[in-house]
């Protein structure tokens, strides 16, 4: 048959042009300005400098980086600790129930994330329901400070991002044939050993994507951090926001963003390595 000349690929041209113009170019632009000196008002001069990157090594910003990574790591581990057992229970439920559970996990995602944070603000505030309960039970004598703490900020992150941990874990566990674990048990492995040597390694790709989907956004999700953590301390997203909108120093904001991109890239690369077929974990 005579080959047809196919120009279908050209249909992708508008999308390619749009994304080049509004994603690739802006990123290249901030890479460039991160090496330039700032202008007095807003904007950049054309003087090359490494000062923006040198400033990243200032102890204040080192602390922002370690703090953000620490928060992201804690949020990731906590989401995994809550999300994995939930995903496991979900995957082993009856099909009809599983569909309902999946829906219940996804619905909060469709509502506004601010609204979910607001729910926690109400719950944790000084005269809120949780404090009332604690007072009545006699656990505390004065209302405890729950809102505007680091713990509340961590809780908010976990709460906001939990579906992103549950869903990939669920997919991985669902694909795992339960007979594989049963075989391990029949061959004499204890439940714990069967889990550690069979279930966990086989569901590692799901765990790794879940971890990445929680870890990466946490460093930038500053509005959750601010509303529940009370704006004490700072995470990377907040500092970038302030450099752009308050300090009006785009070159330094750009350098911070480049560092955040590098960090994200490193996490993705790590995830690819750990999530690969050969998991040299155990």
């Amino acid at each position, binding site marked *: 048959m005579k080959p047809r000349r196919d120009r279908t690929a050209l249909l992708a041209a*508008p*999308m390619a042009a749009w994304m080049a113009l509004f994603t690739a170019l802006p990123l290249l632009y901030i890479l460039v300005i991160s090496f330039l000196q700032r202008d007095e008002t807003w904007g950049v001069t054309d003087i090359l400098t490494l000062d923006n990157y040198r400033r990243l090594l200032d102890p204040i910003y080192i602390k922002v980086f370690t703090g953000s990574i620490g928060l992201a790591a804690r949020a990731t581990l906590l989401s995994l600790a809550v999300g994995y057992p939930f995903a496991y229970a979900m995957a082993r439920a009856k099909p009809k129930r599983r569909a309902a559970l999946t829906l219940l996990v996804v619905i909060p995602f469709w509502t506004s994330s601010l609204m979910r944070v607001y729910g926690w603000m*109400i719950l944790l505030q000084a005269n809120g329901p949780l404090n009332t309960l604690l007072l009545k039970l006699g656990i505390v004598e004065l209302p405890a400070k729950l809102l505007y703490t680091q713990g509340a900020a961590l809780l908010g992150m976990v709460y906001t991002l939990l579906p992103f941990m549950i869903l990939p874990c669920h997919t991985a566990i669902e694909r795992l044939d339960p007979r594989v674990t049963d075989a391990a048990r029949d061959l004499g492995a204890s439940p714990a050993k069967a889990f550690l040597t069979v279930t966990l390694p086989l569901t590692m790709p799901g765990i790794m994507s879940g971890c990445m989907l929680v870890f990466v956004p946490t460093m930038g999700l500053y509005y959750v951090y601010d509303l529940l953590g009370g704006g004490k301390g700072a995470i990377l997203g907040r500092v970038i926001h302030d450099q752009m909108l308050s300090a009006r120093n785009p070159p330094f904001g750009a350098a911070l963003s480049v560092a955040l991109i590098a960090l994200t890239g490193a996490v993705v690369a790590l995830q690819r390595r750990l999530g690969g077929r050969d998991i040299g974990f155990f």
Partner: protein
Amino acid sequence: MRGRGRSAWRPVILTAVLVFLYLPLALVALYSFSESKVAGVMKGFTWDWYAKLTRDGAMGQALRTSLRVAGLSCLVSVPLATLGAIGLAARQSRKARFAKLAGGVRGLVEGVTVLPVMLPEVVLGMSLMAAFSMAGARFGIWTLVTAHTTFCVPYVYLIVKSRLAGLDPQLTEAARDLGAGPARAFWDVTLPLILPAIFSGTLLAVAMSFDDVIISMFVNGAQSTTLPLKIYSSLRAGVTPEINALCTIILGVVCLAVALSQLLRNDKKRGGKPDETDNV
């Protein structure tokens, strides 16, 4: 099967996590009916906050801005991403000389397209803000629409792409062999098959545009505050039951939409047709 005892923990964790997920949402709704001015204190029952909300001009303005931005960015992002997915899924040129080059271009386009999914939102927001300032754009509804379109495209693209990958290429080939032109084959065969994916993609794009805080914060103008930005600034000032009423309405609309889409899905199942939306 092994002893029944080993699954005893499952209902516990399922219930605990669901309570954790829904308790804050339920509280927001509950307190929207409280007479107390302090959100979080339950006293009596009233519709006042809803009435007050309808009279709040600034809130209404923000809602209109949000609806307009969501609508316009869907109008741009859905066709762009759908055509993009179709274009990138098309078979390569058969000339070996160009095959490698075409593969490289395709990889590059796909990489740039899905970049916003991997990128922290704050980076996309700040880079768009810097680029818009450099270009001398006026910050307002059009910068919002452009930014929202940009972060919606990859999600719509990924959804449509996965649907296309599940299609049997022989279907289109059969249409072509029977004499249909490429446009006709697309219109009569491919489009109806990927329509559910386009629909899910559109829903997702609307939801994401409507919920976005971070990117909008960088690219909005003085006259164009979206609803999430408005809610955010009032939450920073302190909580008010009016916000509860607003959030309860949003929750109600979402639940209604989800229920409706479930209903439609079940109808289709009863009709005996394969459930196409299940893959999405």
